[in-house]
């Protein structure tokens, strides 16, 4: 979908922010427990060797003991859940996290929001892939389809449900999504996978994993095509390649290198404006990432990381005849290229038995070339410098304080400080309470900062978007009272939180009269709205035995918004009730069945202020895995939206009932 088409739609939008940092996962941070080396001064073996925790290397686990020490409610979507869900697109996996809303603007542009999904640019969350921030810096949003990553590359997703800019940088506004890919040591031999389904879904996946001495690597290439929504012109093809290599230089030093490339075509239409004819865009994405980690001990580690992301979108098309121009047709060229370069250093240490610290610094340069959006062929850039520190202090054996702060200096948004403070009290090993308060900012994106979009006709009053002054960063203040309980006797755990989030200075655009405007009006971005969200969120897991797993998440919330522009009403941008449930059972002889149920009460549609009714979706997956020798074959049948709920999630977007079959084979 072209930019201009969005402009003519009645959708509200403001564009996304920048920046982010990775932090070592809270899980890892919390795992290195009290650490003596397991020996006394006299060289005696002590019980510490048996009792101390270790950094988790190869685990698909939900890391249960660490979550109750995390400063903010955290959920893990692990490999088992990913497989059981039957989802084939990465953003859909976030339906498995509490309070998340996933929607499609069209068959290839997805949007994800936590508690609220205001429009198609999910710009208020940080999204990291192995510590690499994947935001698109021009207009914002995450190019989910172009990440050069497949669902099968993902080991787990850690979802931090709250602002955590102190740890993860300025986009860590309503939530942080940490996608962790599979370590190459887990992949050996050749894996082939094919999916075929009834909306034109054709997917092929080929992976080779191997090693040379202490260098483990995997190479994945994949191809996908589908026909998107029935009533839309939104077919896509995706071709991607990625590589990850991990080299252990010695006991203390490791190097990780990742490379990726994706390309494909995207059919685009505009159901709101007949000016835009159906046409096809081409997109390209690539990234490189290099990370060196030096481990001194379980309590002390350094890393240095470099990465580069590039996104390219060639989107040019000729409009339908425009009556006002005497039936002339106009070429719109919305090509854009963005580059992000980032370097980060981090040091984790434990200066005293009760105190763990992490601190670091990063520098980032975003470069954007998008002539239609900024009315210049010049490349624009934005630099962001950041320092951060987090401390975990065990006040007593049962009480933990987490405190973090980051200071960021952003060329276009100025400088700001984001603090976070929380207190976790363990009433016992199984019951923990948490109080947390956090503030974070979202810096404006380049297009929010200096838009200059003109309709390409040689008349003076051709302005659609103008630079109306620099919007301030959006600001969130979040309060949370949480409880984390584990009930090992019945194999259950519960995470509950009461939350109150105040979001201020939200950036939206508004049309105003402007003599240079195409029809006497033009739009600009400003801090127009404030929102408060309060509610309760529950997340429970039940695993009665090795064969059964049940995950249930439920959120009830109330949203108050100022709704100062008609372009997008925040107060209806989230459901009052959000429920999801995933259950799976392993039968004998390699059979497995799973079911996912996803419910959202009514809320506004994605691109408009029209209300859509409640949405219910039931997905089923049946699979059989046969293993012989080192080889493994899996057959699966997945039915999505079994009851064929007809609710449109956006004008003309309904997933209908979809069925696909899958076959995978691994030769080791």
């Amino acid at each position, binding site marked *: 979908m072209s930019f201009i088409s969005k402009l003519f739609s009645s959708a509200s939008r403001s564009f996304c922010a920048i920046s982010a940092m990775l932090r070592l996962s809270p899980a890892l941070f919390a795992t*290195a427990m*009290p*650490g003596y*080396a*397991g*020996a*006394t001064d006299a*060289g*005696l*073996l*002590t*019980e510490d*060797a*048996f*009792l*101390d*925790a*270790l*950094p*988790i*290397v*190869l*685990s*698909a*686990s939900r890391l249960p003991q660490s979550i109750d020490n995390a400063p903010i409610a955290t959920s893990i979507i692990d*490999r088992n859940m990913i497989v059981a869900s039957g989802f084939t697109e990465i953003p859909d996996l976030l339906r498995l996290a509490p309070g998340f809303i996933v929607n499609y603007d069209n068959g290839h542009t997805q949007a994800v929001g936590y508690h609220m999904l205001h429009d198609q640019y999910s710009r208020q969350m940080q999204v990291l892939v192995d510590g690499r921030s994947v935001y698109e810096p021009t207009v914002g949003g995450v190019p989910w389809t172009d990440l050069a990553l497949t669902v099968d590359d993902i080991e787990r997703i850690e979802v931090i449900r709250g602002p955590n800019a102190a740890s993860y940088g300025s986009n860590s506004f309503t939530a942080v999504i940490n996608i962790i890919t599979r*370590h190459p*040591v*887990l992949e*050996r031999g050749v894996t082939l996978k094919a999916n075929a389904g009834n909306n034109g879904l054709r997917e092929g996946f080929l992976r080779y994993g191997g*090693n040379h001495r*202490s260098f*483990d690597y995997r190479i994945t290439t994949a191809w996908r095509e589908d026909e998107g929504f029935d009533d839309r012109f939104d077919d896509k093809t995706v071709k991607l390649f990625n590589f990850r290599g991990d080299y*252990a230089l*010695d*006991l*203390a030093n490791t190097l990780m290198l990742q490379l990726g490339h994706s390309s494909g075509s995207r059919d685009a239409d505009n159901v709101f404006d007949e000016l835009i004819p159906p046409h096809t865009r081409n997109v390209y994405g690539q990234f490189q990432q290099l990370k060196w980690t030096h*481990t*001194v*001990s*379980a309590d002390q580690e350094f890393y240095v990381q470099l990465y580069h992301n590039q996104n390219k979108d060639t989107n040019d098309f000729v409009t339908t005849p425009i009556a006002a121009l005497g039936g002339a047709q106009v070429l719109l060229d919305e090509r854009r290229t963005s580059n992000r370069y980032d370097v980060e250093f981090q040091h984790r240490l434990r200066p005293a038995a009760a105190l763990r610290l992490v601190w670091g610094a990063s520098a980032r340069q975003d470069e954007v070339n998008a002539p239609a959006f900024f009315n210049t062929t010049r490349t624009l850039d934005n630099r962001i410098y950041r320092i951060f520190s987090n401390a975990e202090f065990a006040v007593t*054996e049962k009480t933990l304080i987490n405190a973090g702060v980051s200071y960021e200096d952003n060329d276009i948004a100025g400088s700001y400080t984001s603090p976070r403070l929380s207190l976790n009290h363990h009433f016992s*090993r199984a019951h923990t309470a948490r109080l947390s308060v956090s503030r974070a900012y979202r810096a404006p994106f380049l297009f929010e900062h200096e838009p200059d979009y003109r309709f390409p006709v040689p008349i003076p009053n051709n302005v659609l978007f103008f630079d109306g002054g620099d919007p301030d960063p959006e600001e969130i203040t979040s309060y949370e009272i949480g409880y984390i309980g584990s009930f090992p006797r019945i194999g259950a755990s519960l995470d509950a939180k009461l939350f109150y989030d105040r979001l201020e200075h939200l950036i939206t655009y508004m049309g105003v009269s402007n003599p240079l405007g195409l029809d006497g009006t033009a739009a600009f971005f400003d801090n127009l709205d404030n929102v408060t969200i309060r509610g309760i969120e529950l997340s429970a897991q039940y695993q009665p035995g*090795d064969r059964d797993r049940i995950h249930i998440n439920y959120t009830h919330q109330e949203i108050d918004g100022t709704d100062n522009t008609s372009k997008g009403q925040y107060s209806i941008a989230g459901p009052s009730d959000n429920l999801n449930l995933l259950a799976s059972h392993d039968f004998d002889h390699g059979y497995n069945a799973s079911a996912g149920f996803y419910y959202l009460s009514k809320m506004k549609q994605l691109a408009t202020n029209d209300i859509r009714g409640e949405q219910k979706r039931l997905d089923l997956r049946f699979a059989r895995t046969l*293993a012989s*020798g*080192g080889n493994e074959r899996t057959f699966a049948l997945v039915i999505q939206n079994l009851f064929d709920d007809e609710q449109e999630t956006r004008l003309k977007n309904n997933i209908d009932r979809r069925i696909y079959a899958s076959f995978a084979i691994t030769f*080791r």
Partner: protein
Amino acid sequence: MRLARGIAARLMLALLVMLPLAAPAANEEGMARILFVASQRSASYTEFITHVQQTLDTGNPRMPGNDTLFADDLSASPAPDPQQDLVVAMGTRAAQALQEWQPRTPVIYTLIPEMTFEELRQSGRLPCHEDRCTAIYIDQPLERQVRILHAAFGHRRIGVLLGPTSQRYRGPLEDATRRYKLSTATAAIEDAEGLLPALQNMLEQVDVLLALPDPLVYNSRTAQSILLTTYRYKVPLVAFSKAYTDAGATLSVYSTPRQMATQTAAIIREFLHGERKQLPAPAYPERFRVQINRHVARSIGLDFADTPEFLSIMKESNDE
């Protein structure tokens, strides 16, 4: 600060050891008191104490009131002989603190590795007089580990890395593997630099790696490399703590502080209310857990489906 802490510790100590004197009436009625000495202020020790207490309380409302000291407090100041009927020393540092203190009360040493207990006892300074002393080790008997390994993997070649500390297991290990007719390869590790080459060399020759605790070989710094390397060679690692399976080892055999607490409580009961009022001989934990990292096991092509003996050991050990 240090001074203040010292005074506080002294006061506390004086109060604690004197407490029973203040309640002689209770003592006459058979309300024995136990003094717990913990090596550190951390969850494993607290959990242990809580569980001992709960087990003793169950069905016996008149069971002892207890006191707790930490090894640091004891070493900070000399203390009078405890008035409690029994001391439970948890961990190595607690045992060392008792070496300094030399109480004449009977002692149960627990949460302590077997070799460390033996070493301290052989030094002659550990308060441990005949039937007035016992131990419940934290580690597993080698025979048990080899039996489980045999049940899980059959007749496979076992590799063991022996560091300066675990060298002492060499003899018992050979005895245990001989009993199950398993062939063993061992490699001696003398320094950290030699670890990875020796590990790689060993993984070329063996089917299973059995980890025996040794601070030089298995520590939080080496864990990641060892786990990745064994995984690379598709050789399952059988380890000695829950942390190892959580982190990525295929299998672990270990006893939880709770399991050891149950056993300790039984000994306490027998000692306080039994007829002979003496402590048994030092022993390994009776109960243990076998934990599999299924994710790792599956990735290296193991599902244990056709090892009924192993599955029954696992089921039994995990039914608590």
